[in-house]
């Protein structure tokens, strides 16, 4: 799925790195616990979360993710967007809740664990 297709499904606003909206992603994870993302996530390229702080972006950087979606209308700070820009990570915000946002993407083919 292209990141721009995710944006449409989630009716999300893109907050930075629009130039990467054409990138393809194959799996995602939804989580508010960065400890778990660092421990269990493998190749998921997208993180959906309701947690908003710079460690969310740094976690995504460490995991080589390409997109972070903030749910429930959470708005990241300019400092967080700057961090994301340095690594080309697309940041989006949606009004949907975590469960619904994940469900929409999952039912459209974006799975949890990439199957080869």
């Amino acid at each position, binding site marked *: 799925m292209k990141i721009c297709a995710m944006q449409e499904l989630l009716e999300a606003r893109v907050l930075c790195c629009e130039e990467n909206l054409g990138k393809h992603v194959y799996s995602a994870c939804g989580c508010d616990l960065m400890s778990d993302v*660092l*421990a269990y996530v493998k190749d998921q390229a997208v993180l959906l979360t309701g947690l908003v702080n710079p460690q969310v972006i740094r976690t995504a950087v460490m995991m080589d993710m390409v997109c972070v979606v903030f749910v429930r209308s959470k708005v990241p700070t300019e400092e967080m967007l700057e961090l994301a820009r340095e690594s080309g990570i697309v940041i989006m915000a949606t009004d949907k809740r975590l469960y619904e946002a994940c469900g929409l993407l999952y039912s459209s083919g974006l799975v949890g664990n990439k199957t080869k």
Partner: protein
Amino acid sequence: MSESLRFTFDVDGGDFTSAGHASVQVKKNLRQLGLSPEVIRRVSIAMYEGEINMVIHAGGGHAEVLVHEDCVEIILDDKGPGIADIEQAMQEGFSTAPDQIRSLGFGAGMGLPNMKRYTDSMEIFSTVGVGTKIVMKVNY
């Protein structure tokens, strides 16, 4: 023998929002050196967990990353409270992090086991009341 490349960082313990800053910088530096993405990812995750631990549990510390011929070595050194029972701290789910840290997305007790999983070797030297030193290696 050529000398190993060295990056050093002071990790500020007073401010959680900056936690992870050194790890992001290391990731950039290793990318520039052209190391494999797999090695870079393992080094960054292990260092990130360790850096966050120093901020949360030890009031900050010092980080050093050495790029050797056969591996990357990460040395984390703090003058925090130390770890009384290392075996217990290494168990998944063991955490003494306060609730406020949990609301920031950490404190699940996954960091140390995760650091062990992502590295080829990990040694912890800790003395209660003196501090903690962790040495990790990721082989190419």
